[in-house]
Every structure is written in structure tokens, then in C-alpha cells.
């Protein structure tokens, strides 16, 4: 089985756990993804599968290039808008997956595991240093020069070095970056609706394309029950 699937962000809501705690979760529509191609170490140098997500009908086939259509034709599958290669460390994880196999959320992920979610963040346009770098600016009410409240302040030293260091935090374009949020907890899976719930926020806007992968940092160890020994009775 592949370790990851393509998904769509639906939005956020809250759920209650069995203990009654309230948790913020993101609802994802994960898969189903179709295997388009199987890559092998002998032929391609590494083991991977290429997954297709978001079927396109014949009417909109002109939206993808002829080269891509050729790939789907060779696989003998339908046309898909999104492709993603899922590389695995161990070939055993892939099993005997072949082109045309359909992967659903319940086959790949299970409850209480940890996942990494990759997506494109929301675009903020040309943003100032408050939003982009979290700077605090100057005082609002007193002891500041005219209209200097949201400014970055000093950006360098004096004659030495006589230049602004590279990478200095300044205003500029912010957002539309590929970002991965690691170790999100899978709170719920509904196979019939292709829905998965993860704790916390994921990058991008609702309807945005995401790639959900098994956490690269590994799964948490199962907690071992602490053995409490009874205290021996004091000798009289």
C-alpha cells in the first residue's frame, strides 16, 4: 500500500472526544486515488507509485497536455487532473500495486496515526513586516517619529559592514509557498464519504489540493502501562 494520498481541504470544525474534550479538526476529502504507474528500482532507480486524483471527463480532456494523456492511455485508466508520485523507503510497503488499482482513505490510513500534510499556503500578496515576519513595530502612542508604527526599524549597522545583510527580513511577497505541517493526528476516517479528520490546521484555502503522507518522523510508540507494585507491609 502506498503511504500517501492526494486530498482536498474541506474546512475546519470542532468535535468532542469520548472524554468530552473539544478538539479543532480539519476535514479532508482524501482520495480515492488511482495508481497510474508503478516505478521499480531496476527500471527507474527507485520504488514509487504515481497516483492520479480528480477525474476529468472527455469533454475537458483538452485541459491536459497530449503527453499526459499518453501516460493515462498507457496505464489504461481514466484521465486525472492531479498526479503525485509517492516514494517509499521499503518496497514491501507497495506490495503488488499495479496501474489501475484504486486506493481509498481507509486502505492507506488508520485511526490515531500521525500524518504530514503538504499544501500551498494562502497568498497574502505584498505584505509588510508585521504580517510577514511577525515584527512588533514601534510604539503606537508615544516616542515615535511621524507615521513609523508598522515599519521594520533599522536594517543594518554603520560604515562596517556598510551594506544590508542578505536575507534581512523586509516587506515583500508572502504566501503561495509549499508548506508541510508535520505530525497531525488522524481523528476520524469515514470510508464511504472519503473523509478524514486531522487535528489542527493545514495549509491553504478550502477546496485546495493537499498531499497527505504518513508522518516522516514516525508513529508514536504505544504507551506502556506503568506497573505499580504494592508496597510491602511494614514488619511489626
Amino acid at each position, binding site marked *: 500500500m502506498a503511504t500517501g494520498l492526494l486530498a482536498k481541504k474541506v474546512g475546519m*470544525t470542532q*468535535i468532542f472526544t469520548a472524554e468530552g474534550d473539544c478538539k479543532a479538526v480539519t476535514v479532508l476529502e482524501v482520495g480515492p486515488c488511482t495508481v497510474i504507474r508503478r516505478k521499480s528500482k531496476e527500471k527507474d532507480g527507485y520504488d514509487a507509485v504515481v497516483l492520479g486524483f480528480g477525474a476529468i471527463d472527455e469533454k475537458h480532456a483538452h485541459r491536459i497536455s497530449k503527453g499526459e494523456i499518453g501516460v493515462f492511455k498507457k496505464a489504461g485508466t481514466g484521465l486525472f487532473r492531479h498526479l503525485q508520485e509517492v516514494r517509499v523507503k521499503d518496497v514491501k510497503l507497495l506490495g503488488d500495486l499495479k496501474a489501475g488499482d484504486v486506493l481509498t482513505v481507509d486502505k492507506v490510513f488508520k485511526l490515531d496515526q500521525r500524518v504530514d500534510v503538504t499544501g500551498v499556503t494562502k497568498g497574502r500578496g505584498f505584505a509588510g513586516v508585521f504580517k510577514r515576519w511577525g515584527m512588533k513595530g514601534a510604539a503606537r502612542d508615544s516616542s515615535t517619529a511621524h507615521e513609523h508604527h508598522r515599519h521594520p526599524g533599522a536594517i543594518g549597522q554603520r560604515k562596517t559592514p556598510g551594506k544590508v545583510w542578505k536575507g534581512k527580513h523586509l516587506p515583500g511577497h508572502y504566501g503561495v509557498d509549499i508548506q508541510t505541517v508535520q505530525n497531525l493526528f488522524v481523528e476520524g476516517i469515514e470510508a464511504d464519504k472519503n473523509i478524514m*479528520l486531522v487535528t489542527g490546521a493545514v495549509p491553504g484555502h478550502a477546496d485546495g489540493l493537499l498531499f497527505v503522507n504518513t508522518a516522516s518522523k514516525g508513529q508514536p510508540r504505544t504507551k506502556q502501562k506503568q506497573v505499580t507494585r504494592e508496597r510491602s507491609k511494614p514488619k511489626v
Partner: protein
Amino acid sequence: MLRNAIAHIEAKYTKSNVPALRAGDQVKVHTKIKEGDKERIQIFEGVIIAKREGGPRGNFTVRKVSYGVGVERIFPTHSPRIDKIEVVNHGDVRRSRLFYLRDLKGKAARLTHDEGAGVEAVVPPQP
């Protein structure tokens, strides 16, 4: 279709036995308290001084004065830790946020309401 997925999730955590709540209501909130492996019901009685809408994600703030000390608790409306919510009466208030009650003490902190009228009788007519 996508938004339906959220409604579908929220429907699972929405309770049907929640009464209509308003700011100014005197309520008894029956909360489930867990002690060890036993569970009991504790009643928190006070006035609703604020309410957040949001359907299944809403909450409300209850204020009471306990031994001279003001205590406020925020309850998620659909929390499974709430056994039931009892509306004792409806206070006659003119705002949706009664934060001014925090500054009032004793007799001044009371709300007026129709005495003797049942809960149903005080429910405002539907427009």
C-alpha cells in the same frame, strides 16, 4: 458537496435536547463530573451573560456569585459533559451581552422578570 461533509460531521456532535437560550436566562446546567471511575451530576446555576452562536460550535457563559465571589463558566452548548440545561426563568434584559453585571453587587445585580410566569409563557413570540 464539500460543505455537506462538514455538516455531516457536525451533525454527529449536535444534541437535540438543548433548549432555546438567551442572555438574561437563569439556567441550571447539569454537568457530569468524573471522580475516579464514578460519575455524578453537579448543577451550576446562574445567569447567561453571553452567548455565541455558531450552531454546533456555539457556547454560552453562565455567571453566578458564589460566597461573594463572582464565578463565570463557559459551556460549549453541545458538550457531552452537559447532562441537560434547565431554563429557570427569563430575565428582562435589553442587551445580548450582560457584562455590566460584573460591576454590580447584591440587589443591584438582580434582573427583573415576570414572577410566577412559566418558562413557556415568557418565550418571545416568533416573528
